[in-house]
């Protein structure tokens, strides 16, 4: 199954109006024009689990650090495309995914995202397209659901999340894919950011 290079997929998502951190294609250190801290990543067709092999370095605090990380990464991954993003502040971490299942057809996954998502497995699925009621149902079906009413200072905006789910449902109808991960998606009081996006066609 071919993995679409992350940078390519992310650029496509920009055009569709999905919110993501500010991103810069990096050839040399002058190319980064964003705020710090920053994250430097390899965009690859073959590497899907980047963190484990050091193909993503986050929390780069200064221009000087950036220069060193870039040098190191160019040495470790010669010839690979590199890009950097402004590092987003943490929000409520969610996973939203799409999959084409041979029996059920196109499904949308929604659940608790981030590093522990596969361990916690607090997820639920709907067939696409979904309507507003289905989207609300997705929130309600998680054990985690009380977080959407605000939990320990994490305030979120349910309406923004529901709109995002509907937008992804709409995307899933108009596009072909085998699997898509948006993981994590950070949800805030006033918006969301898709931090990582992977597409397998």
């Amino acid at each position, binding site marked *: 199954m071919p993995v679409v290079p992350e940078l390519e997929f992310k650029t496509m998502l920009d055009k569709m109006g999905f919110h993501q951190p500010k991103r810069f294609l990096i050839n040399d250190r002058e190319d980064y024009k964003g705020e710090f801290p920053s994250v430097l990543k390899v965009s690859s067709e073959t590497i899907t689990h980047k963190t484990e092999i050091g193909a993503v370095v986050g929390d780069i605090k200064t221009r000087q650090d950036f220069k060193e990380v870039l040098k190191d990464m160019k040495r470790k991954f010669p010839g690979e495309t590199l890009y950097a993003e402004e590092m987003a502040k943490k929000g409520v971490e969610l996973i939203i995914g799409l999959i084409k299942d041979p029996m*059920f057809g196109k499904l949308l996954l929604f659940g608790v995202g981030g590093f522990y998502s596969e361990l916690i497995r607090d997820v639920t699925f709907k067939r696409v397209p979904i309507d507003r009621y289905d989207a609300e149902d997705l929130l309600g079906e998680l054990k985690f659901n009380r977080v959407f009413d605000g939990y320990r200072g994490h305030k979120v905006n349910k309406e923004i999340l529901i709109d995002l789910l509907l937008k992804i449902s709409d995307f899933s109808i108009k596009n072909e894919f085998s*699997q898509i991960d948006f993981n994590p998606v950070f949800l805030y009081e006033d918006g969301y950011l898709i931090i990582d996006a992977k597409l397998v066609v």
Partner: protein
Amino acid sequence: MSIDLFSVNSVCLIGASREEGKVGSIILKNLKRSFKGEILLVHPTADEIDGIKCFRNVEEIPHKIDLGIISLPSKKAVDAVKSLSVKGCKICIPVAGGFGEQGEEGKQLEMVMKELASKYGSRIIGPNCVGVIIPRIGLNTALTSEEKSRFPSDGPVGFVSQSGALGLLTIDEFSDFGVGFSSFISLGNEIDVDETDAIETLGMDDGTKSIALYIEKIARIDDFLKACKKVSPSKGIVTLKGGQTDSGNRATSLHTGSLLKTSFSLNGIFRQNGIIQASNEIELMDYASVLALGKPIWGKRVAVVSSAGGVGVIATDTLENQGFKVGRTSDELASEIRSKISPIGSPYNPIDMTAEATNFQYESVINQIDKSGEFDSILAFVLFQTFGVTEDIIEFLKSYNKTGNTPIVIGAVGGEYTRKTMRKMIENGVPTYPSISRSVAALKTLEERGEYLRRFENASSS
């Protein structure tokens, strides 16, 4: 497309046998025992079996045949399907295996058989299945032994299964518990009639009030969901889905795929289409029976009534844990209840009538709660171990379940006497469950049903 299973007047058995224990002999025995229509037999040599005349072949039969049961090995079964279809028989059930489940050659035979049948407008259930049970007309094509397995009574639950054996075992257990069935359809290899056809068939039958479905695979997902959406506003559908989906095997590098593979929760997908999901065969039957016997619940406020303090407390904990509200009765209602029950009881919620409870107290308290309109549902534990509570309470519960405004679910806990009485309650249409957790789960099912119906109404009015 629906099939005409409920008005079968004549059944033709091909492959009947005299030999005790043979498939053809067991099926004949079961037909003779209960089938209300005409039984026709085809046998190449015998003139009669068990006092029923045998025809040499299908062509010789002068009557119309509504349904044919074929108990012959695969190649001969194909020929039998052909003769029956040519004769105008509408439903053919080849029960034996030896088809697609055994490889390419079997698949070829299935294709030939299906083409033959559809050419003459006949439908095939199976092959490799136990066929159908329609208690209303006494039709039973299954290989169950009278001595060891209970033939279900006619009732409101329609049951469709991709596993014949699991279906029969479950029917045996729940028939003993008093649950009645409108039908059992074993789909087998599903070369023609599939789960979608079955849903459409049961959807059109007035005797079927709810549908239970055991499925491992769904052949035509869009048609299936469309059929469910069409039927579910009038009949509750419960599904037990066995086996995991295999899409997780592909491209496992992404989280979504591995989460789908490991997730047992297809709940969301079923809910979206008005289907309630069960996670085992007990839930499948409990939910189907409560959907058939009970009324939809339109809110989360539950009144818990019992004669055993601890039962009420655990039920309350379980309910609240699932998002229900077991709130205090108003002062007015509490004083009404207080005047009816023992002074050492509790008129608040959970309402505890203590071991001094009587049939009359149950009746008064339940009616009082209903009148108050303070609750969306009543969970009453009718416990027969004390003196004042007897079988006579069934009459009241039966009529309350029909005419009361506040939906009710009954729980009971106990041994032989309780089981016997519960059975009578269910036979009388009172939704009754044999434990605290099962009665709460049944109540929850009615609440989900209400939620779905409200959504459905909103969707169709907007």
